[in-house]
């Protein structure tokens, strides 16, 4: 009995050691990484899964699990707070400074192959204090959508300046159709602000610069389209967003990003339309770049493997595989020609990379954005003057900047 017992104990101990040691032995050869991003449209989800599968097939030593999640912000917050962040994750340029300040990101940008190939405007969106943190995975810009049928019927060509656009809006406002759709949304108006030569803050986010004659011109131009009756808001038109108003043919022009293209193709296949670059204002051409990077966390367990994988995703091969879907655009200048050959109609969006401004502000700036949206509505409702709106925005912005 005693002997049997001793033998059993020994057997169990050996078995335990074997079980405990086995994964360690394997871990020495294979690194397991998790890439976390948000769930996007089914076609994008499937394409990214395929790219990751291809990587896994070719790299036995670094195996990646793709984790696409709903409600990304909560999930990321949870993972960071839990002390076990994913090895690679998406960071929107808008959230970038928040995460850098929380010391959550490792600067890996310069470790990548040919890092100078990324468009400067997009590099800049993920650079702070001279450190390039994470490579942009793709980007979108704003462009002007025009309803070609309406433009041809009126004998108009695509507007290239504010004056031409206003004239076109006026000419096309007839028979229940409006010239343009102008949402009371900072993310659209800000492109006009930059085109007027204005700015929101100075470059290092220490001072508000929005209360300027340029900003007043931009605000006046944008809201006058509405007040003069050449444009409506999505709410006036009974639609959820500007793209829907444009798709339904309720307006002749809309300012949207390249995400509108698959939407119009799927849901309004009969619509005749084209994208042109945003019309130039008094300060020249301007658009916004909305971009997301592949970030490696400060607490990365396998930084070398993570960087190697990110280098593949944002390198010539991985980025080509991703952007060949024709939705988001390649962030490497060297991929421009090959991409345009496939999607010539998207050139106006890609051209925007040359003069786009980054969609990035300091932590807490959401309050300023909300204020701008509110003031845009008030000016459109003739309940606020242009200068009154700008000084209100300046006041709240100064509070946010001072509280940093």
């Amino acid at each position, binding site marked *: 009995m005693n002997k049997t017992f001793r033998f059993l104990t020994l057997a169990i101990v050996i078995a335990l050691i074997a079980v405990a040691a086995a994964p360690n032995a394997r871990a020495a050869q294979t690194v397991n990484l998790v890439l976390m991003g948000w*769930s996007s449209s*089914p076609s994008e989800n499937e394409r990214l*899964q395929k790219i990751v599968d291809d990587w896994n097939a070719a790299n036995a030593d670094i195996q990646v699990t793709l984790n696409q999640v*709903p409600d990304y912000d909560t999930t990321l917050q949870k993972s960071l707070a839990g002390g*076990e962040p994913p090895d690679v994750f998406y960071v929107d340029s808008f959230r970038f400074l928040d995460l850098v300040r929380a010391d959550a990101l490792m600067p890996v940008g310069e470790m990548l192959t040919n890092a100078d190939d990324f468009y400067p405007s997009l590099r800049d969106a993920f650079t702070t204090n001279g450190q390039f943190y994470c490579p942009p995975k793709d980007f979108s810009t704003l462009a002007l959508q025009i309803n070609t049928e309406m433009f041809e019927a009126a004998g108009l060509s695509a507007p290239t300046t504010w004056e031409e656009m206003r004239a076109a809006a006026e000419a096309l406002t007839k028979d229940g159709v409006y010239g343009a759709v102008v949402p009371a949304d900072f993310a659209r108006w800000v492109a006009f602000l930059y085109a007027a030569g204005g700015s929101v803050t100075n470059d290092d986010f220490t001072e508000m610069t929005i209360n300027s004659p340029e900003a007043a011109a931009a605000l006046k131009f944008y809201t006058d389209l509405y007040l003069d009756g050449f444009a409506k808001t999505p709410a006036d038109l009974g639609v959820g967003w500007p793209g829907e108003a444009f798709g339904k043919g309720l307006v002749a022009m809309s300012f949207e990003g390249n995400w509108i293209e698959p939407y119009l193709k799927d849901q309004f296949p009969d619509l005749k339309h084209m994208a042109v670059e945003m019309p130039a204002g008094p300060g020249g051409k301007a658009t916004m770049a909305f971009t997301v990077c592949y970030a490696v966390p400060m607490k990365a367990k396998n930084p070398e493997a993570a960087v190697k994988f990110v280098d593949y995703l944002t390198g010539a091969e991985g980025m080509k595989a991703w952007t060949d879907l024709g939705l988001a655009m390649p962030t490497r200048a060297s991929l421009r020609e090959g991409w345009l050959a496939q999607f010539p109609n998207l050139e106006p969006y890609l051209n925007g990379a040359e003069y786009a401004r980054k969609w990035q502000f300091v932590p807490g700036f959401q309050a300023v954005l909300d204020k701008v949206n509110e003031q845009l509505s008030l000016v459109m409702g003739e309940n606020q003057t242009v200068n009154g709106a700008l000084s209100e925005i300046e006041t709240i912005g100064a509070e946010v900047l001072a509280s940093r």
Partner: protein
Amino acid sequence: MSTNTVVSNLDARGFSLPPNIGKIIRTMLTYGVLILFALAMIMPFVYAVTNSFKELPDIAANPMRLTPGIRADGTPYNWTTIGYDRALNNQQINFPRAIFNSFFVAVVVTIMRVIFNSMAGYALARIRFPGRGAAFAALVGTLMVPGIVLLIPRYLVLSQLGWIDTYWALLVPYFADAFGIFLMKQFFESIPREIEEAAEIDGASRFRMFFVIILPMAIPALTAMAIFAFQGTWNDFQGPLIALNLNRELYTLPLALAFLRGVTGDAIQWDLMLAGSVITTLPMAVIFFIFQRFFIEGVSYTGVKG
């Protein structure tokens, strides 16, 4: 209506309405208002269901039509099940599995809550033990804490237990809830003590007395609680979001639906989303119709039924 009838209805002032016309008008008004509100409640569901069987351009062009519309070139659109096909055969999300998960979790949680909440409620109502007042105060206190505050702590606890990405994390934390215990306690306090005393004299043990005598009397309260539990669990988004990380096989319907929607901004793929929504809503609707009688009884439960 003959002239005679009208004449015979004339009163001293020389004119009159048929005797019941006031009543008819009242009834018509009442039903008119009722029908109007019923339509306002039902139409969103009707639109969701009909649009889920339409083609995407058709939904975009004619969202308010109950049947497929006409294209610009005059050809009609067709009925289609492509939205359902896209939802159920999604490569990333196992939607049929999500339906099972939702059912499994909701049923288990409901059963456990019925058992644990009623036992805890009974203890707080009837058994004298040290700290009973404090325990009850703490319980009611937790009702005041907004759920969002507990998001990260809950994740940390689950991850310490090693339950992330397992059914345990979807089930165990929800086996009892403060509101249910509170509801049951209030109900048990309304049952006359004499009944228990009689049972005690007959020699019944505490457990026997509870399960054989008290619990059957609590069916209205239990039904109400079971409904809250099932519906709350069925619709819960945040709980499963915290509990699951990499294991998408355990997604419940609200998570699967959110995943399907993705970060597509305003450009929502309505055929897919509406089909997913109908699949998510339908089981609750079916259950409601089957158990309608109990639902009404349970919800209208006001406390004392002696």
